[in-house]
């Protein structure tokens, strides 16, 4: 219970932010906000030791118990690691934002409410054990990140980026919901732990592959995998603290978390392994390749985030192979799982610090364009140091933590080609090759980022105007950078405390975290990985020194064939396409709509009659046809035909009148005196009203003209006529029950005290209908009265308020 409430603490705290912002003007609101993640870090730190020993903590809060939907907080190694990342980096980001955002110019209450909402949503995502509440928090992250990206809502690009990320992540989220529901149907439970327990049965289920694909689609859109990464570079319009927090450390890792969490369920399928590892590797290459093209500091970092996420994703894919090998504890793929979690931590540290440095550079120089920057090293030495540490770690150089995880990554990729199952021994060779290429480009863009900003020839005017950032702004990046170095020297402490417990969550082969025999060492001998790293450094350095010569090659790729262009075209196409579709049938013509309706009705009814084989005509028990009836029918038909082909409207009105009187005569010969009386009077009145309308037709366009003949209308009206006739005949021939009118006949005198059955039915047996029929009449009368009397436009004052 309290464990669940911890998730909601940021949301509850968000309620008080506007009051603090409005009432306490001279203290930056961020200081109050800082308390929330900082205290949560302390709370979650208390779990570390127990979780590392293999303990798990659960708490639950009932939400909709009748549907079995509850908030369940499940803290094992994986969710604890994520919770600590979220709250820890959250604290640093809040601290950074205090100095980054001006308390007078910015709408801080909006910013911090969105940020706290996001923090709550992320904690919910990583701790939820219930699929529905997981989805709830998942969408909350999409919405709050939409709000954060569009924080400067008066900029066009912010709104565009916010909308784009919203469309893609929410779209993926909806697919994921579909996957969750399929999982719920298959396993008859929404609890992830219970689903994992019955993983082998699920794998043989028909829906399994669909659930797998849909869940993956959700994870890939959120984690900016190929080809859904396109929202991430556009999300860089957000304030830099947001980019550092959401788009490097937390939200984009929600997809990673999801993949890791569901690995025990889906890893039994080779589709999962191939997709996760393959798409991850493709994203890794693609992102690192295009990062060198960018000229915007945050653009480079966005693409590098995409590529690093691809790296983690491919490692998770490789780790799923452990479900198919015999001797897990000695299998080389256990390194993949370790490396995935380890790199996740490392990436959060160095990418967070790099984003913050990019923000500092932007803040101090006023530009993020790498072509205008340069030579800031001597002006901003601290920022440069942090940037260099982060970049070298990203490039995978010692003595930084990126080196360790990159070595393990290469180990895992080299191992894949040895794998026997699922064609990996033929196609698996691609994995190390692509991983090598991607690492070379990672090296290039890391140096590109740091050298072109800080080392290249200085822009002269910066010497006077630019100075080192305030110390408060530097605290967070420096802390993160010190982690980068610290982790390099104590990797096994991190490994024992965080990585191994987290591994247990998706590698459930070990009795405890301590049983995982992985020891990270900076020097691991002359192994193939080391030679690969040397190759990466050599080739990377060569490519970087010749960057000026080949970077223009990127411009050769035509804009038409980019994914962004495809997305734009899709949105425009959907917009105009939908418009065209609706314009093609919404013609604003009543005749068109009537045509649609009558066509639809007759087609539906006649096909239903055919399909259900409802035709059966029997003329048993029908009354004999008398001479009167034949005469009346002839008169009726003449009246109808006259109305249809009449040249003048007057003739049509009189024809209609004759039809009405003939109907009254039908009532007479079929023994319905009440109906006949009413029909006669009503027909007279309506013909008089028709004549009135005829008399007032405007003179200008009054041309006597026969109704034009149109084939489609003729066909439709014939179809409707045929339909009604067929239905009437079939219904008449298949009377299943006798009429209830016998009852009325018997009881009209005894129960109702009357003699005229029709009237007694109207006022007594079914007086209810009559009550509302007279109400209808009244409404019609008052409506006519109002329409004629209430003519505001005619009096010259078109608006009633004038």
């Amino acid at each position, binding site marked *: 219970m309290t464990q669940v409430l911890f998730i909601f603490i940021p949301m509850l705290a968000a309620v008080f932010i506007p009051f603090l912002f409005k009432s306490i003007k001279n203290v930056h609101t961020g200081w109050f906000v800082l308390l929330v993640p900082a205290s949560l870090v302390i709370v979650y730190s208390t779990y570390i030791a127990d979780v590392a020993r293999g303990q798990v903590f659960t708490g639950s809060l009932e939400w909709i118990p009748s549907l079995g939907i509850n908030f369940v907080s499940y803290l094992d190694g994986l969710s604890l690691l994520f919770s600590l990342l979220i709250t820890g980096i959250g604290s640093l980001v809040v601290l950074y934002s205090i100095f980054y955002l001006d308390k007078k110019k910015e709408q801080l209450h909006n910013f911090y409410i969105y940020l706290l909402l996001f923090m709550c949503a992320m904690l919910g995502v990583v701790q939820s054990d219930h699929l529905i509440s997981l989805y709830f928090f998942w969408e909350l992250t999409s919405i709050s990140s939409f709000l954060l990206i569009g924080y400067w809502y008066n900029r066009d690009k912010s709104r565009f980026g916010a909308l784009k990320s919203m469309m893609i992540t929410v779209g993926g989220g909806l697919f994921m919901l579909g996957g969750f529901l399929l999982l719920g149907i298959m396993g008859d439970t929404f609890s992830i732990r219970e689903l994992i327990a019955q993983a082998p049965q699920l794998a043989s289920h028909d829906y399994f592959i669909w659930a797998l694909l849909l869940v993956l689609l959700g994870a890939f859109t959120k984690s900016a995998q190929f080809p859904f990464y396109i929202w991430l570079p556009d999300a860089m319009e957000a304030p830099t603290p947001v980019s550092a927090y959401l788009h490097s450390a937390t939200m984009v890792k929600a997809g990673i978390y999801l993949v890791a969490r569901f690995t025990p369920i889906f890893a039994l399928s080779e589709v999962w392994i191939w997709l996760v590892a393959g798409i991850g590797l493709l994203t890794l290459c693609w992102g690192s390749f295009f990062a060198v093209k960018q000229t915007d500091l945050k653009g480079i970092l966005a693409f590098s985030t995409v590529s690093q996420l691809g790296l983690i994703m491919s490692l998770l894919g490789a780790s799923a192979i452990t479900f198919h090998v015999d001797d897990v504890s000695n299998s080389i793929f256990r390194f993949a799982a370790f490396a995935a979690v380890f790199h996740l931590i490392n990436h959060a540290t160095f990418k967070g610090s790099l984003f913050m440095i990019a923000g500092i550079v932007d803040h101090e120089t006023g530009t993020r364009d790498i072509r205008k920057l340069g030579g800031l090293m001597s002006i901003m030495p601290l920022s440069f140091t942090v940037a260099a540490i982060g970049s070298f770690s990203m490039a995978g150089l010692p003595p930084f933590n990126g080196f360790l995880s990159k070595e393990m990554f290469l180990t895992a990729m080299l191992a894949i080609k040895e794998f026997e199952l699922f064609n990996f021994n033929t196609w698996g060779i691609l994995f190390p090759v692509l991983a090598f290429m991607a690492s070379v480009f990672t090296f290039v863009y890391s140096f590109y980022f740091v050298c072109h900003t800080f080392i290249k020839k200085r822009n002269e005017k910066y010497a006077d105007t630019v100075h080192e950032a305030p110390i408060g702004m530097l605290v967070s990046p420096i802390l993160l950078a010190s982690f980068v170095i610290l982790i390099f020297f104590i990797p096994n402490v991190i490994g024992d405390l965080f990585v191994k417990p987290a591994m247990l969550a998706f590698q459930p082969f070990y009795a405890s975290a301590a049983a995982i025999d992985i020891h990270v060492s900076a020097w691991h001998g002359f192994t193939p990985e080391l030679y690969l790293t040397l190759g990466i450094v050599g080739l990377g350095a060569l490519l970087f020194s010749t960057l000026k010569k080949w970077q223009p090659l990127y411009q050769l790729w035509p804009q038409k064939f980019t994914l962004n262009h495809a997305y734009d075209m899709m949105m425009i196409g959907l917009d105009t396409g939908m418009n065209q579709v609706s314009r093609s049938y919404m013609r604003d013509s009543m005749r068109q709509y009537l045509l649609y309706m009558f066509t639809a009705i007759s087609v539906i009814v006649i096909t239903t009659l055919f399909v259900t084989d409802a035709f059966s005509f029997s003329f048993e028990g029908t009354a004999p046809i008398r001479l009167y009836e034949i005469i009346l029918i002839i008169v009726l038909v003449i009246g109808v035909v006259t109305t249809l082909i009449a040249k003048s409207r007057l003739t049509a009105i009189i024809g209609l009148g004759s039809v009405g009187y003939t109907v009254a005569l039908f009532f007479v010969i079929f023994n319905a005196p009440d109906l006949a009386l009413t029909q006669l009077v009503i027909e007279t009145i309506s013909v008089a009203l028709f004549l009135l309308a005829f008399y007032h037709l405007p003179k200008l366009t009054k041309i006597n003209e026969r109704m034009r003949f149109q084939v489609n209308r003729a066909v439709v009206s014939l179809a409707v006529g045929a339909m009604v006739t067929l239905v009437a005949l079939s219904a008449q021939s298949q009377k299943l029950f006798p009429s209830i009118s016998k009852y009325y006949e018997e009881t009209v005198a005894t129960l109702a005290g009357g003699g*005229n059955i029709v009237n*007694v039915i109207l006022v007594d047996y079914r007086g209810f209908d009559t009550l509302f029929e007279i109400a209808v009449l*009244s409404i019609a009368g008052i409506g006519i009265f109002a329409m004629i009397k209430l003519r505001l436009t005619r009096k010259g004052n078109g608006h009633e308020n004038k």
Partner: protein
Amino acid sequence: MKTNDMIIQFTAKIVFFIIFFFAIHIFLAGHYTPGGGFVGGLLASSAIVLLVLAFDIKTVRTVIPVNYTTLIGIGLLLALATAAFPMFKGDPFFTHYFDYFTLPLIGKTSLHTAMLFDTGVFLVVVGVTMTIIQTIGEDE
């Protein structure tokens, strides 16, 4: 040329009463023979329409000083009250009561609460028909 409507006006005065009494007859007889509130109402209003045709709207309005929209309201209220009354006695909505009474002048006859409901219908029909004809007739 000045028209002279003497014959139609004279005839209308007599025929009006014939139609009107026929309307009342049809209305009252509705429970046993063809007729009822609806037809009765229509016939009664057609009697008034005859007067409108023979004279003019203003004259008819002074002769029969009835606000027809109010008539609609009264009719609806009467119908609803008749239907709702049984609920105060604990019977379902729309329960009708009837019995035989000996009345002065007429003698033994049956009285039925359905008649009250039918009176509501009659008034509404007269009100609606006359409202429509009057508003359209007066429209410029």
